[in-house]
């Protein structure tokens, strides 16, 4: 990666230039992509959501070395929280409580008032995002607590179980009290509204967002929101990495007993890692729900957890630019294939020989195998310190004062 360099500590000038170039590229990107159709921007929107997830998981897996296979659960928590607090769903919840237990229901209805009973709760995005982060973070700590003594394979199995538990909860928490609307999922979730600008476009605008006489497609508006959140998350994780806490996480990853002996309270520091990672997942989930307007348990299956983990591992575990790249590649490539492969086959052979979905699975597996064989540390791993730079020279001096 000679062109772009993000090593702020060693080469600040080059790193900041790279960042500026990248930022300009990212800012004009959707306008170029939109020329080829909004679906391309939409693909990138989804990729940005995956990057947020991968960055969150990177804290847990990459920094602290805790293999978490149920990470998508926190994405689900954020998404369903948004579904409950920014859609008509809460009205259904109240209704089911009234049916189940009129006494409790009446109290709740009088508490929330008739407006909420009719239309549900519609919180603003300014509340949803911090709330999603907080609730997912809390879930992260709660799910992390029982696993504190586990490592490696055992931790992976337990977290995998937790991920499935959350999904099954979402699938079944519709009876007798309807929290999640079960397998049908929650729909008509409010789009994001920032300073009275509806990112989905006002009704009748054909999904165009008008901002002071300047109009752009809704997907572009979401692109900028997600880009902003991604940059914020990159910023936070990068700062955490080079801090007292980041070092404590890596110390736990490298040798937990030695970390304890150095005075690191491994319980608290691990819970913090789970919780920070989960809160980013929660934010991504909230954005996903608002963007799609619909959530259902299908979106939070084990495959999704594995996909996010694959982004982290394939990009370069523990290295933020690598993780971002892994996220872009694994989230966008399948969609690109879907758009390119079938038309290409039609053009060449006159018919579709291999469906893109099949090809996607094939390439996905092949890519993972090849990368693990040839670049086991990921496509863009952390820069290694020279193993023995100018060893002869430094050894002359004080290597052995004896």
């Amino acid at each position, binding site marked *: 990666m000679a062109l772009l360099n993000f090593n702020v500590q060693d080469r600040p000038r080059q790193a900041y230039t790279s960042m500026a170039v990248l930022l300009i590229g990212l800012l004009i990107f959707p306008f170029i992509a939109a020329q080829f159709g909004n679906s391309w921007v939409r693909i990138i929107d989804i990729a940005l959501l995956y990057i947020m997830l991968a960055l969150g998981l990177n804290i847990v897996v990459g920094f602290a070395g805790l293999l978490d296979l149920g990470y998508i659960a926190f994405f689900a928590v954020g998404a369903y929280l948004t579904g409950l607090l920014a859609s008509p769903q809460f009205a259904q919840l109240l209704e089911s409580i009234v049916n189940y237990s009129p006494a409790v229901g009446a109290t709740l209805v009088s508490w929330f008032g008739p407006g909420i009973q009719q239309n549900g709760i519609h919180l603003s995005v300014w509340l949803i995002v911090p709330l999603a982060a907080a609730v997912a973070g809390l879930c992260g700590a709660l799910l992390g607590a029982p696993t504190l003594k586990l490592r490696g394979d055992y931790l992976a199995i337990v977290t995998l179980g937790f991920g499935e538990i959350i999904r099954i909860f979402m699938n079944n928490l519709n009876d007798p009290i309807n929290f999640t609307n079960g397998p049908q999922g929650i729909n008509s979730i409010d789009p994001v509204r920032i300073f009275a600008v509806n990112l989905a476009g006002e009704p009748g605008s054909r999904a165009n967002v008008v901002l002071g006489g300047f109009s752009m497609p809704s997907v572009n508006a979401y692109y900028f929101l997600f880009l902003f959140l991604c940059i914020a998350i990159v*910023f*936070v994780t990068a*700062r*955490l990495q080079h*801090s*007292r*806490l*980041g*070092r*404590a996480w*890596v*110390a736990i*990853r*490298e*040798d937990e*007993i*030695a*970390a*304890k*002996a*150095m*005075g*690191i*309270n*491994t319980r608290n520091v691990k819970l*913090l890692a789970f919780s*920070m990672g989960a809160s980013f997942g929660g934010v991504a989930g909230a954005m996903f729900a608002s963007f799609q307007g619909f959530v259902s348990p299908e979106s939070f299956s084990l495959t999704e957890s594995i996909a996010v983990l694959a982004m982290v591992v394939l990009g370069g575990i523990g290295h933020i630019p690598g993780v971002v790249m892994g996220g872009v590649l694994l989230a966008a490539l399948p969609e690109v294939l879907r758009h390119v492969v079938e038309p290409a086959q039609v053009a060449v052979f006159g018919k579709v020989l291999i469906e893109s979905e099949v090809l996607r699975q094939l390439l996905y597996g092949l890519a993972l195998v090849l990368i693990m064989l040839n670049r086991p540390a990921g496509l863009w791993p952390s820069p*290694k*310190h*020279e*193993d*023995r*730079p100018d060893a002869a020279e*430094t050894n002359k*001096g*004080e*290597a*052995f*004062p*004896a």
Partner: protein
Amino acid sequence: MSEKVILNISGVNKRFGGLAALTDVGIKIMQGQIYGLIGPNGAGKTTFFNVITGLYQPDTGTFELAGKPYSPSAPHEVAKAGIARTFQNIRLFGEMTALENVMVGRHVRSHQGVFGAVFRHKAARQEEAAIRARAQELLDFVGIGAFADRTSKYLSYGDQRRLEIARALATDPQLLALDEPAAGMNATEKLALRELLVKIKAEGKTVLLIEHDVKLMMGLCDRITVLEYGKPIAEGVPAEIQKNQAVIDAYLGGAHK
């Protein structure tokens, strides 16, 4: 040398099932001493070490550090109280640089949390700079300052030992506990280690040392305790220990007479 007691431990018992690993072991270390703990293989030296530093829970025992009782219930609490240790089989944070390893040692004496890390306000920046400066200072002190940016797992064996000592010193310990620091070292490296320990002592630090190399111990330690089968069999200055019949029997067997 001041006559302040740094570590006062008595009546430690530890059983693993039917095995009495430690029976009524005690130790009393004065400030500024290098205190040796020796004994044949399997005598319980490392077990005693692990009990002192909170890795194992003792069945009984009273623990006092610098006149204050401390509870060896969790290793991080012990480190905070002021005992820092190294390990018999080196346990560095392999992927981190030498400097970062020592910076981790400052964890327990610093405070910045998530807020400070993300916003890097003035206090956070100052603390971070202080951690870095102190870590570099300690690397220089143990003589590997030039290797600060090397990945620690690629350091030579002797330098890894030094790095582990620097990392332990970074916690500002009242007592530095070293578990077989000379294990696997050649004669030159042992000599260098010995000089380092003398240097640490000259800084006013107190050291508890487990070691097999009797020659090294006799010249270095102010006092020595000998363990055998989990029981203390002798305690005294090196000259006394050398002549003690029970110690000679323990090491050479009773039949040599």
